[in-house]
Structures are given as structure tokens and as C-alpha cells.
């Protein structure tokens, strides 16, 4: 009796004994600054919180607003979810008119700040920032700048730079990539004149001598980075790319405090300090009410900057004969698709496809079961819904009269056997995934 009781306990309370895993969303492509921050946190947490599984989930694109949308939408109330964010996302939300914003998250801590570098390939004809600026002034369109998402720190820096040297922000030929890491291949391959991104994203290639740093966006020289500041080159501009950690909305005060405590411990650990040093990140740890004030102030500053740049309307291409807008290609493709669909429908209705009625009824039964599955999955849990799905599918396929030679008539007995096999299979999978492999599934109920 006790062994059965413990078995039932195992089945019903699968998650109780497992330490809750932490999932850090990096809303950018692998190799970018947010990704590096998330992975650095993962490494440090593995040391200071052994036994807790920490995963990094990359959701790239659109200044992180794609990741933000998913984070707010699917992690609400989950104290095991964190997301890396920063200046880029704050501006991206404004520029893109994103339906979700940082205000929808729970700010936990600001961790680092990083300064931007302007780099060219080692083989470039531009030896100094002055030479690049001269070419830029002469023919703004001839210099192509690459970096992260449109409206991000990289884009902002180039447009602010243009204003500083007396060019309209709209004259910048800026090519957006999913992140600094993604722009790397294009600048190394010589397709871009210059690339702009955080120092860490280019550090490997700079050290290897493949990229030359023309300038850094900090107010004063950074130790360990051999590059003049923009101010040294006569441009009165500095810009910092801060990075912070947020939690999903809907957390209790206790959960928020616990996360803040964990981040404080992380920021104080020796391993984190050495990580900062390695990556050239400045330590700008901040939590609680000062953090909220900082975020509000930064939001205001960005809005102001963007209004001045009027960056939303400024990306009008210079000499485009045919303009590609974000919606021109999709609409054209969708139209042609509908045309092809109509044409196919027209040509195939003439050659009627033979379906037997019984078979179609089977397919309809399966489709109905599949469409009901998402609701069953979250309300009844994995085991119950999968058992039912298995039994419905088996019973349906069994009922085909011409299917198998031993055409069995449907009986309560075969249905019971199908249910039993389905339950055994589902329970085995459930135990394998939750206990053996540590993947969370909706519980038994």
C-alpha cells in the first residue's frame, strides 16, 4: 500500500522536489550584447547557486520587442523567468510603436553599462575617425554603417554623430542587423564601410587585429581599450548602453524581493566582477526605487532624442526608384498566393478527388480532437489529455473496416485497451520528461 501511495505521490506532485529552473530570455540573436550578458549570468549563477538549472532563451529581432512581447505574454507571474533589457529596447519600443513596453515588466536590477565603438575592417582605407568623417561629410550615402536593430543604440549613435557634424540625421545610410554579432560578418566581408556596436561584441576580432577601432562613445578613455573617445576627435557626444534585468509582470512583492536579492548576490560575486573586467563592462548596479527613477528618466531622454532626430520618418531612402516598405513584399506575396490558391482550386475541382466517406469522418474526428487539445492540455494536464488523444486516434484508425485484415469491431474492450496503452505511454513520457529530463509539463490535473 505504501509503495502505491508513493507512486501516486510521484505522479501527482512531480515538480515539488525539483528546484525551479531559471530561464533568462536574451531578446537578441546569439553573439549580441544581451546574449552575452545572459550567458555571463548563466555561468556565474551556476557557480553561486549550484543545483539550479539556468537556461538562456534567444528571441531575436526588432530591438528586442519580439522577445519583450513573448516575455510579457507567456511568462506572466512566473518567478523563474528573467529577461535582459537595455537602452536599445527602451528606444525600440518607442520607435516601433510596439504594443507592449518595458512598463509591462517588473524591473529587478541594472547590471552594466557599455560604451559603443566605431570599427572598420583592418583593410579599410579609413585610418582614423577624421578620415571616415571627411568621407561621410562629402557624400553621406557612400558610407554605409551597420549595427543592431533600427532605432537602437548603434543607430542612435550614428544619427547623433551626423547631427554633431552638421548633417541631417536622415542622411545616414544605416543598415540594421539583428545584433552587433550578426553585423560582424558583413563588416569583415567588406560589405559595410563601418560597424557600430558595444565593445564586447567586437572584442575578439579587435584583439585578433581583424577590426580597427576608430572611436569609443565614453566620456573619458576606458582602461584596457586602446581607442580615442569621440570627444577627443572633436565631437561633443557620449552615449552609454546600459543593460538591466527585468522579471515578468504579476509577481508578488516577496517574489520580487527574492529575485532582487539573488541579483544583488550575483553582482557582488567575485566571478561576476571578473566577468565585467573581461568584457569591458562598467559596473552600474542599481535596484529598487532609484532603478525605477532611472528608467523613467532614460525613457524621457530617449523620447526627446528621438523626437529631435525624428528618426521614425527620417529613414526615407535617398535615391530609391522603387521603395520597399515593410509591408510591400508581404502584401505582394500574399496576393500572389491567393491567386495561385484560386487557380489551383479552379483546376482541381474539375478533376474530382475521390474520398471515401468513412475515411473523411475519421479525419474529421481526429481534427476535432487535435483542435480541442490545447484547452485539454492546460486544464486537464499532459497525462489525461494525451491518454485521450491516443485513445481517440487508435479507436478511429481501428474502426476503418478495410484497414486491417483482422477488422475488429469496436467494442468496449478494445476502447479500454486503447485507453490503457495510451495512459501507460503518456505516464511513461511524463515521467521521462519531468523527472528524468527536467522539462516542465502541465501537471496531472
Amino acid at each position, binding site marked *: 500500500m505504501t509503495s502505491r501511495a508513493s507512486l501516486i505521490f510521484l505522479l501527482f506532485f512531480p515538480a515539488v522536489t525539483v528546484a525551479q529552473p531559471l530561464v533568462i530570455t536574451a531578446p537578441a540573436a546569439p553573439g549580441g550584447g544581451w546574449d552575452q550578458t545572459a550567458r555571463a549570468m548563466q555561468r556565474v549563477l551556476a557557480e553561486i547557486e549550484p543545483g539550479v538549472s539556468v537556461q538562456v532563451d534567444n528571441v531575436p529581432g526588432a530591438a528586442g520587442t519580439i522577445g519583450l512581447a513573448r516575455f510579457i505574454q507567456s511568462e506572466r507571474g512566473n518567478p523563474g523567468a528573467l529577461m535582459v533589457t537595455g537602452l536599445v529596447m527602451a528606444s525600440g519600443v518607442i520607435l516601433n510603436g510596439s504594443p507592449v513596453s518595458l512598463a509591462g515588466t517588473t524591473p529587478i536590477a541594472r547590471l552594466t553599462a557599455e560604451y559603443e565603438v566605431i570599427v572598420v575592417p583592418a583593410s579599410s582605407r579609413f585610418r582614423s575617425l577624421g578620415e571616415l568623417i571627411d568621407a561621410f561629410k562629402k557624400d553621406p550615402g557612400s558610407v554605409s554603417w551597420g549595427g543592431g*536593430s533600427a*532605432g537602437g543604440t548603434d543607430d542612435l549613435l550614428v544619427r547623433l554623430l551626423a547631427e554633431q557634424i552638421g548633417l541631417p540625421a536622415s542622411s545616414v545610410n544605416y543598415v540594421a542587423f539583428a545584433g552587433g554579432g550578426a553585423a560582424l560578418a558583413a563588416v569583415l566581408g567588406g560589405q559595410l564601410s563601418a560597424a557600430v556596436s558595444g565593445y564586447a561584441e567586437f572584442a575578439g576580432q579587435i584583439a585578433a587585429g581583424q577590426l580597427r577601432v576608430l572611436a569609443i562613445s565614453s566620456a573619458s578613455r576606458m582602461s584596457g581599450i586602446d581607442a580615442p573617445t569621440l570627444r577627443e576627435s572633436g565631437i561633443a557626444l557620449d552615449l552609454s548602453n546600459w543593460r538591466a534585468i527585468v522579471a515578468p509582470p504579476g509577481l508578488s512583492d516577496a517574489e520580487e524581493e527574492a529575485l532582487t536579492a539573488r541579483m544583488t548576490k550575483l553582482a557582488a560575486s567575485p566571478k561576476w566582477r571578473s566577468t565585467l573586467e573581461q568584457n569591458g563592462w562598467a559596473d552600474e548596479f542599481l535596484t529598487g526605487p532609484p532603478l525605477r527613477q532611472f528608467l523613467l528618466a532614460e525613457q524621457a531622454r530617449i523620447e526627446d532624442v528621438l523626437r529631435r532626430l525624428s528618426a521614425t520618418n527620417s529613414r526615407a531612402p535617398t535615391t530609391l526608384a522603387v521603395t520597399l516598405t515593410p509591408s510591400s513584399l508581404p502584401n505582394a506575396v500574399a496576393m*500572389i498566393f491567393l491567386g495561385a490558391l484560386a487557380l489551383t482550386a479552379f483546376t*482541381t475541382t474539375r478533376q474530382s478527388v475521390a474520398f471515401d466517406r468513412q*475515411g473523411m469522418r475519421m*479525419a474529421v474526428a481526429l481534427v476535432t480532437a487535435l483542435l480541442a487539445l490545447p484547452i485539454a492540455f492546460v486544464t486537464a494536464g499532459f497525462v489525461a489529455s494525451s491518454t485521450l488523444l491516443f485513445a481517440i*486516434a487508435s479507436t478511429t484508425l481501428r474502426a476503418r473496416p478495410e484497414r486491417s485484415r483482422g477488422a475488429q469491431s469496436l467494442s468496449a474492450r478494445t476502447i479500454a485497451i486503447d485507453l490503457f496503452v495510451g495512459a501507460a505511454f503518456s505516464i511513461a513520457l511524463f515521467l521521462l520528461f519531468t523527472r528524468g529530463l527536467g522539462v516542465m509539463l502541465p501537471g496531472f490535473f
Partner: protein
Amino acid sequence: MGDLLAGFAVALTPANLLWGLAGTTLGTAVGVLPGIGPALTVALLLPVTYNLDPTAALIMFAGIYYGAMYGGSTTSILLNTPGESSTIVTAIDGHQMARNGRAGAALATAAIGSFVAGTLATLALSLTAPLMVKLALAFGSAEYFALMVLAFVMVTTMLGESRLKGWLSLLLGLTLGFVGIDGLSGHARFTFGIAYLLDGIDPVIVAIGLFAIGETLWVASRGPAIDEVLPVRGSLMMTAEEWARSWRPWLRGTAIGFPLGALPAGGAELPTLMSYAIEKRLSRRPEEFGHGAIEAVAGPEAANNASAAGTLVPLLTLGLPTSATAAVLLAAFQQFGLQPGPLLFEHESALVWGVIASLYIGNAMLLVLNLPLVGLWVKLLSIPRPWLYGGILVVASLGAFSVHRSAGDLLLMAAIGIVGFLLRALDAPVAPVMIGLILGPAAEQHVRRALSISQGDWTVFVTHPLSAALLAISVSIALWGVFARRLAPPG
């Protein structure tokens, strides 16, 4: 070569050998079972391998990919139901051989042919990858766009019964690919105000829906007439004559499979079909084709394995997935923070070459797994069909759910499953949907980037020599498709 030797040092560690063995075994199993393919299996394992060493996980995934190519032939030969779309052609003559009491020889020429082709193609991968890496750095947005146009033209011209239906599938994939927030501007497109769609449509969910769910619905609606598993009869040893008739098709199959796999032409269907057509034309006994000609098993089986290695060339060197499985493998790389592309060979040399070296070892493992042990895999086929498809639905929904732990993905999977069923009912190929979905968004980004760099000058696509060459090839293939008789499917 030094890199490859270092790769062997990585692949030959006991732990990595075990992961390789696990991958090849699992791959053979999913290859044998109809409805479950390598794409679904890797997708299912993605959330499980977060904490694994990236090298070990990728060695396992590569083993699954290669293993499925071996296992699919067993089902085709003994059951006449292809385990994978890549072994449809094998079923034609392989099953006839089994009916003629030569099942042993058919399995042997499939397994040995797969081994020969797999090993030669992996060698070709080791030799071409470093060259491609050099070439890849010269690839700008214009070149990437031209390469994708070539993929679209190839996949619609060469797959399936009619070009219209090929285009229909491709356009469906392209349209689905646009759904979500645009990566370059942040505009929401085709989202109809539904927050779930802001994230876009995940190719992994689509692959599961199209292949696992669509297939199950199709079987439910009509089902194969014959589902009798033939026993393995006849010696597994091939006769001298069978060897003599097999070795040339193996080599020709490899020569067809590898380059076509490397080109983005939608997986292994096309190379196997071409291999069959060429063997039939070259054979002195073309009348035997369709009635159990061993060349018709040897050639396509070699071609599908060689194409698997070929697929890895653009995936590893350009970060360009050209099949559903490759798309899931790309997701696997990104899960570990690795971006396939020219820089991967520089930054993660040990990992890349370790995975490539593991493919040589995996091929040897698979020969052993599939020849002496074939009886074990045949037992898998004795699972009653209703339970098999019930199990496939459960595993598919588990896989779809665990990718993002989202119930919305289950609904998407069911919807895509219905679409997959309708496409099959229309007799339209399904592979172009995946190609359009995977490459469409990338192609759009590249065309916009190329125009941005060139300041709106459209001639950039024809003034760059590489891009111009790729576009010229695309146009000639399209014209060839219009004027010449298209490659008639065998039989």
C-alpha cells in the same frame, strides 16, 4: 586536415562516442517508424539538451539525422510504406525485391550503399567546408538573396507533379514567414491584432504539423492498402552479381546526392528521384525497374545519405538551412549561442570539426546497427498501426508544446496539420512550404539590406558577379522547367 584530426580527438572521447551511438540508434528508430522524422525528434530533444555540452548534443543530433536516412529504407523495403520522404523511391523496387525473396540483398545494398555514400559525402564535406567558408565571407546580402531565389526556383521547378502546386506550397510558406514583427523595422505584419502571432510562426511547429500531423490525418482518411510486413528473407550477403550491379549506382548516387543536398533544393526527395531516373536510363535492363532492380535501391539510398551530408555544407558555412531537419539543427546551434556561418569555423573549430568527425564514426556505427541488427528494427514495425499513429500524435504534441511551453503552439500545430492534409489531398508537395517559411524572411531581409547598402540601386543584384551568376542559373532552371519536359517521376 589538422582541424579534422583535432575533430577526431573530440569525437573519440568515450562520452561523445556514447552520445553518437545514442543519436544513431534513435535516428534509426525514427527512420524506421513512419510519421516520426529527424526534424520532430531533434525538436523534441531541444528543451532536454539545454544543460548538455553543446558538442555532445550536436553530435547526437547529427547522428539522428544520418540514422534516419539509414532507417527509412528498412520500412520502404519491408513494408512498402516509406519511413521518410527521402526513401519513397526506395520503396518502388526495394519492396518488389522483398516480394521476390531478396529482402536481405535489398537491405544490404541499402545499408552498404548508405555507408559508402555517407563516408564519401562526409569526406566531401570536410574538403569543401573550408573552401565554402572562404567563399562565404564574400557573400553579401545581394549574394544571399540570389542564392535564395535559386532555392525557390529549384524547389518549385523540380519537386512534385505540377509547378503551379509547387508555387502554391512555396507561396504559402513565404506568406506564413512574414507573420510577426518585422526584424528590420519593428512593424507588426499579418498579426490581425493577435498577440500570439507577434512572435511569428516557428518553423519547428510547422514541421511537426506538416509532417507528423498531416501524415496521420492522411493515413486516417485513406490509409495504405497494403500494410503487411514482409519477413527478412534471403541472405544478407549479396551475390557477386549484386555487388557488381550495386557499386556504380552507389558512386553515382553519391555524386548526385551531395551537390544537390548542398544546393537549397528541399531535402532528399529530388536527389533520390534523379538517381532513380539516371540508373534506369543507364541500365542494360530498364525493364526490370519497378519489378525489383537492385540498382534502383542502391542508387537512391546512396543519394539520400550523400544529400544529408550535402545539407550540412550551407548550414555550417552560411548558416543557411535548406531542409526541415536543417532548420531544427540551426535552432539547436542557436540554443547554445552558436551562430553557424563562416565565423563558427574560426571561433568553435573544435566543436565543428568534432561534429564532422563524429559523422565518419556514426556511419560505421550505422552500418553495424542496420545490417546485423536489422531484425531488431523490423520488430518495431510489428507495433499495431492504430497505436503507432496514436503514439505519433502524442509525441508530436509533446514536441510542439515543449519548444516554447506554449499551448498556442498546439493550436498552430493542429491548424498546420490540417493544411498539410489539404496539400496532400491536392497532391501538392509539402517541402516547399518549409523552404518558403525558413528562407522567405531571410530573403526579404537580405533584399532590403542589399538595397540599403547600395542606396536603392537595384542593379546591385546583377553587377555583383556571384549574385549575377546565381540569378542567371535560377533563370535558366526556370526556363528549362518551362520548355523542357520536366523530370518525370519514375514508374
